[in-house]
């Protein structure tokens, strides 16, 4: 039945490239025919249906269908499955498999005596409900997506907020996010309906790879980055080794090179790292600011509500003030403070060719071109025609200051919406000097943004758009030198703040009004009442100035006198409400995420994989071997920020009709419970991979997962409650001779602890494990010898706070150029490429680090201290406890006697103190295979 596909494609296997390119021209039709055929013939590509479990002779052994698939093959060889493992073995196996942590001795004891018929099922449910479950299973996922906390190469800098992606994965497992959603959020979390903070964070998936910020060949670097995305996506979600078709047609499967690029085209909208000076790239495009309540609240609605509430409160205050005769209906006279006022340009000259300074003895401003006076916010104002008009005044501020003025315009403004740095705009009040220096200013940017900023270090603030509406608006910028804090106000509302330089801002000699200081950026519109203060005005004063309402302290007595106490009380309360009103959080926090270009770029085939030899342009499509149905392309999101291509792909991958997807994840779940996957090559279901040992079992698992709505927890339950999972790992003589490789699963497969489990189990055993979840990666101390392998031994690994040193290994920083030696010795995943199955090596250097290393010796001593503390003076109990904490098993009396003898012998012959002898015993416990391996 597999004839056509299984027949070796000899012409393209191991042929050299010349032969290959010749073959490609003549055999494209053949490859297409083979792909079409493979879709119905190759086990992995066939339509997914739920197979019926086989009948078995010993039905009584079976707890669910999994057991029938397993037992049928065992029985076919006239073998029997192993007996059920002991309770002590089962709870340790299940705890480590689900949480990565050993059970406590108390948990073991309780489970062993639990007589309930559902004791085991209850145990599984308890472990699945543990938050540690997500921590354990996230690690399996992170191996696949080549998660690391740094970028690699010369600087090997930290990937900003990569840990939020890691925490998203932990949360997703813990919340049992349906697998289809888990796929959709990572591939298109910014495009799905109902997107939220988590789904944006999930798209950090695209940003996890190696990233060189100084590249020899930009096109090559971008192509390599794309290859990481294409290959990781195809392998992780589909089990297709698509990366093999980057340079030429696939050597094992009927996949044309073209199909690799068609798949890449799904990601053609993803903005890559941003080009910068020389050979360098910047991280701009890979970061986004996202509010934690993103998607649940519409910021525009929220903002509109804020504006309306504020307007109504102001109206109420003004009504009282008008009634009390404090001002007219427009809010005047103006009662701005004169405290620390160093300049006040009122622009009252009716010819508009001089600008007197209303502050006594202060220098007057110079009018550089004739303006003309118009009706102002108060009295007259100065009109700037967008040409040479400008007013200049000596800069008398530089430490703490406030700049305040009114402006009115219908002009579009300078710069562009995508670059709202103040020095790109049209000058309002400005002192910009070229280069990075101690300057500052305020300008109008395209579409009516008010922008402000300061230099050295460059600091930028910006309002929202739309202030070019032909109405008067008040603008104020305040600065506190000691903290560097800058606050930008429009119409009395703080619209942005930032922390900048704490130096005196003294670069410009004067300030330009109505233009940028350096003569560009002419403003077209009116400006009035420019005030400079040598203090940072508090928000209430800015508000009074902007709106013409008085401070409550000022107004209260007059209101009381004219209108009485009750009105005064209303006034006070209304002011209080106004003070309490907060502008909605607009920006949010930085996350590593996908961001799209304005439109997807064209995708071309790269001949021989070279970005410098572009061939035919291709459109997004899915590999023919997997194309049982077509992706729905009409899913572009309404927000218009992206093309919808990734969503189309995500929907196609997550579709229940896509058998590959569900087979792939089911196989991975099996892999981590049974310690070898049914398909032993979990990232390659094609011809270069291994075929499944139990082909129908894969389909049964996949179909069952779909029936369960993609709930991974449901599948853990199904697998772990099977009789197959509960088997003992002890082999019978018969099984050893007839099923030596344990292909039939005649007994459970033992496994070694993973690197993380090993360290975490030591910390759990001695009671120092810090269970805090999530957050930035931690850096516990490393041996000096290891730091010295870095080109920056003293800066490469700054320690995090001491309490973090015993956090779970999941949270230890994964730095591409430097790793914790114990973790890398025990086969941590390679961080640069997808790792579907970890190595499990046995090398003498592991023994060295376990017996001589600082880490194990320290943890062993802490274990000794723990048992001494718990059982002071009772050596027998201390030893029992140490063995329980490390093996999950209560040692026999003989074993304990032997251990006591050992401890005493060390004291007698090696002259160790009782404490030191116990340290040595605890170190032996950590080195026992009983600790390192799971039965």
């Amino acid at each position, binding site marked *: 039945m597999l004839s056509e596909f299984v027949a070796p494609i000899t012409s393209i296997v*191991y042929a*050299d490239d010349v032969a290959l390119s010749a073959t490609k021209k003549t055999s494209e039709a053949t490859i297409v025919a083979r792909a079409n055929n493979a879709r119905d013939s190759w086990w992995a590509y066939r339509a997914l249906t739920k197979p019926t479990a086989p009948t078995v002779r010993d039905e009584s052994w079976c707890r669910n269908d999994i057991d029938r698939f397993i037992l049928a093959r065992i029985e076919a060889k006239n073998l029997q499955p192993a007996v059920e493992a002991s309770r002590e073995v089962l709870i340790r196996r299940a705890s480590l498999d689900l949480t990565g942590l050993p059970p406590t001795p108390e948990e073991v004891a309780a489970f062993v005596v639990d007589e309930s018929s559902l004791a085991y099922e209850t145990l599984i449910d308890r472990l699945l409900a543990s938050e540690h479950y997500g921590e354990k299973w996230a690690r399996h996922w992170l191996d696949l997506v080549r998660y690391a906390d740094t970028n*690699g190469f*010369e600087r090997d800098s930290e990937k900003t907020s990569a840990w939020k992606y890691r925490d998203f994965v932990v949360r997703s497992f813990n919340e049992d996010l349906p697998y289809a959603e888990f796929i959709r959020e990572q591939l298109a979390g910014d495009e799905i309906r109902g997107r939220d903070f988590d789904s944006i964070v999930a798209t950090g998936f695209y940003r996890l790879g190696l990233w*060189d910020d*100084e590249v*020899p*060949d930009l096109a090559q670097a971008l192509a*390599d980055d794309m290859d990481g995305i294409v290959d990781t996506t195809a*392998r992780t979600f589909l089990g297709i080794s698509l990366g093999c078709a980057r340079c030429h047609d696939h*050597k094992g499967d009927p996949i044309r090179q073209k199909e690799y690029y068609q798949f890449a085209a799904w990601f053609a909208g993803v903005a890559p790292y941003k080009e910068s000076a020389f*050979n360098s790239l910047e991280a701009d495009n890979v970061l986004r600011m996202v509010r934690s309540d993103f998607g649940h609240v519409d910021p525009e609605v929220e903002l509109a509500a804020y504006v309306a509430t504020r307007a109504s409160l102001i109206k109420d205050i003004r009504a009282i003030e008008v009634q009390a005769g404090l001002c007219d209906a427009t809010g005047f006279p103006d009662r701005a403070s004169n405290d620390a006022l160093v300049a006040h340009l009122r622009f009252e000259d009716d010819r508009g060719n001089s600008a007197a300074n209303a502050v006594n003895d202060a220098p007057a401003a110079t009018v550089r071109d004739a303006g003309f006076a118009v009706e102002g916010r108060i009295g007259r104002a100065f009109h700037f025609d967008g040409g040479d008009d400008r007013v200049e005044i000596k800069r008398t501020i530089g430490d703490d200051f406030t700049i305040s003025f009114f402006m009115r315009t219908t002009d579009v403004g300078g710069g562009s919406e995508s670059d709202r740095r103040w020095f790109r705009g049209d000058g309002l009040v400005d002192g910009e000097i070229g280069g990075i220096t101690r300057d500052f200013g305020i300008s109008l940017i395209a579409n009516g943004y008010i922008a402000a900023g300061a230099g050295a270090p460059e600091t930028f603030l910006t309002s929202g758009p739309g202030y070019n509406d032909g109405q008067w608006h008040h603008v104020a910028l305040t600065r506190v030198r000691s903290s560097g804090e800058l606050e930008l106000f429009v119409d009395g509302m703080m619209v942005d703040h930032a922390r900048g330089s704490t130096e005196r801002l003294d670069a410009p000699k004067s300030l330009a009004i109505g233009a940028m200081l350096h003569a560009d950026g002419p403003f077209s519109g009116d400006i009035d009442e420019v005030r400079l203060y040598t203090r940072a005005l508090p928000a209430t004063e800015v508000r009074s100035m902007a709106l013409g309402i008085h401070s409550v302290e000022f107004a209260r007595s007059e209101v009381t006198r004219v209108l009485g106490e009750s009105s005064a009380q209303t006034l006070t309360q209304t002011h209080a409400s106004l003070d309490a009103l907060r502008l909605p959080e607009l920006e949010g926090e930085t996350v590593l995420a996908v961001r799209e270009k304005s439109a997807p770029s064209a995708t071309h085939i790269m001949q021989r994989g070279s970005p410098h030899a572009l061939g035919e342009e291709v459109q997004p499509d899915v590999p023919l071997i997997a194309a049982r149905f077509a992706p729905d392309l009409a899913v572009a999101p309404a927000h218009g920020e992206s093309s919808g291509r990734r969503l189309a792909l995500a929907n196609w991958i997550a579709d229940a009709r896509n058998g590959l997807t569900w087979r792939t994840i089911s196989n991975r779940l099996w892999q981590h419970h049974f*310690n070898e*996957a049914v398909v*032993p*090559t*979990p*990232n*390659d279901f*094609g011809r270069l991979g291994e075929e499944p040992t139990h082909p129908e079992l894969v389909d049964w698992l996949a179909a069952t997962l779909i029936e369960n709505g993609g709930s991974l927890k449901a599948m853990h339950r199904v697998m772990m409650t099977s009789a197959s999972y509960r088997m003992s790992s002890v*082999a019978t003589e018969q099984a050893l001779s007839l099923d*030596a*490789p*344990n292909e039939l699963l005649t007994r459970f*497969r*033992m496994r070694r602890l993973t690197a993380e489990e090993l360290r975490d189990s030591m910390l759990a055993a001695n009671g120092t494990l810090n269970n805090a979840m999530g957050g930035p990666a931690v850096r516990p101390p490393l041996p000096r*010898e290891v730091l*010295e392998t*870095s*080109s*920056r031994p003293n800066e490469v690994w700054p320690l995090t706070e001491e309490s973090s040193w015993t956090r779970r290994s999941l949270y230890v920083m994964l730095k*591409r*150029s*430097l*790793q914790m*030696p114990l973790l890398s010795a025990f086969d941590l995943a*390679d961080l640069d490429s997808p*790792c579907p*199955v970890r*190595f499990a*090596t*046995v*090398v*003498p*250097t*592991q*023994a*060295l680090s376990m*017996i*001589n*290393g600082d880490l194990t010796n320290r943890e062993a001593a802490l274990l000794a201290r723990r048992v001494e503390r718990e059982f002071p003076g009772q050596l027998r109990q201390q030893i029992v406890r140490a063995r329980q904490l490390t093996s999950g098993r209560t040692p026999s009396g003989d074993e304990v006697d032997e251990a006591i003898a050992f401890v005493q012998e*060390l004291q007698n*012959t090696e002259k*160790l103190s009782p404490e030191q002898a116990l340290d*040595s015993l605890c170190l*032996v416990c950590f*080195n*026992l*295979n*009983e600790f390192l391996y799971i039965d």
Partner: protein
Amino acid sequence: MNQPPLNTFCGQTRREFLWQAGGAFTSVALAGLLSNDGFLQQQALAFDGTTRLPEGMSIARDNPMAAKTAMLPGKAKSVIFFFCYGGPSHIDTFDYKPDLYKYDGQTIAVKTKGRGGDKSEGRVVGPKWKFRQYGQCGAWVSDLFPHVAGCVDDISFIKSMYADSPIHGSAMLMMNSGKLLGGPSIGSWANYGLGTVNQNLPGFVVMLDSAGGPISGAKNWSSGYMPAMYQGTVLRGKGPPILDLANPAGRSDALQRSMLDRLKLWNTRHALLRSGNSELESRIESYELAYRMQSTAPEAVDMSLESKETKELYGCDQEQTREFGEKCLLARRLVERGVRFVQIYSGGGHNDESWDAHGDLKSNHDFHAGRTDKPVAGLLKDLKRRGLLDETLVIWGGEFGRQPTAEYANGTGRDHNSYGFTMWMAGGGIKGGTSIGETDELGATGVGERFHVKHLHATALACLGLDPNHLSYFYAGLDQKLVGVEGAEPIRAIMT
């Protein structure tokens, strides 16, 4: 190209191979312990899920790190690679450009690409040292390397080297792994292909400069997607040579032995109840091996066993050359003991701590050459007089060379140059007293027959008797090779 490998796959099925190779991979250096049992089968397939037969290799049945028969007749058994990190200037060392002196200070049109981007003209910096001819072959060597100059009849220069990157990070990874993004390093490939004859020492040893590691640190000697047993082990000249080799302070050997005996007893009892899982036995044995390493490794690095004359030959008696001289002497002791691949870094950290002479070329290269010239020459001479040079391949060079023009308006500093630079090889499999390839009159770029980093790698593998186009490791659906999937031929003209 594509010659058939001499040793083939002996008709095993791929699954059989996986079982053996994979099983063996889990248990380095434990020859004879492994048998066809269930636990191994699991590991065979589990170690990466896709690995299969390295084409054309014969693999020892039981132990992947055991010495293996080479694929082709090779001369070298070991490699010592001097990595001059930062990029030594070829035109100030071994690539004599007489015209360059007279252009000194003139601004001329020349295309360069370095840290500072692409440039089309620059101010020439004339070479800062005199060149003289040496040996029967008459090779030109600058006054930076008077001692190495005395060995030129054993050396073959490759003067038209080029690389894909003029940026340290990616260029370092390329010189070590053949790929800009990194991967298994050349030392890993050599051990993967040949194993090691001394199970008590690591097969791939790296010695770093006292200034620190190179950029990317351990990634330069990583085994990438191969198992960690193939990665380089950092060996230190002072204190315990290998991390965690020494007993913790205050633990006597007798105590260590008591603990190991107790461990063995209890672990053996545990394994008895789990017959068929020989990984457990392997791990028991790994502690014995570790214990043997504890005594073997210190002996290997014990300089007190060397004569005064030998130490002087390497410059161990002089302050300037002591550090590097000791490393060179150590390298000889290691290859004598069967270590397959030794990499010694000259330069570490950043800027002038390495050969990265952006500012003052003179002081930078005087410093680094002054520390290494005599030791490198001492090693070549010592290997030769002991009859070891014929079976030891010595490689010298950096990740790239340097530009003929100045980087800044003032000063002698040169930016990076990956368009043309020099590396040299000597010893096992190499025809001494030869030179191949050349750069243009300025030394700005290779002209005529140019040699890529992968050709250097191919030559090194071929000297070891490994066919660079068939030494492959199946990963991610491809037969990965050090020289890339498209392959590369060794530079036969410089090989014996």
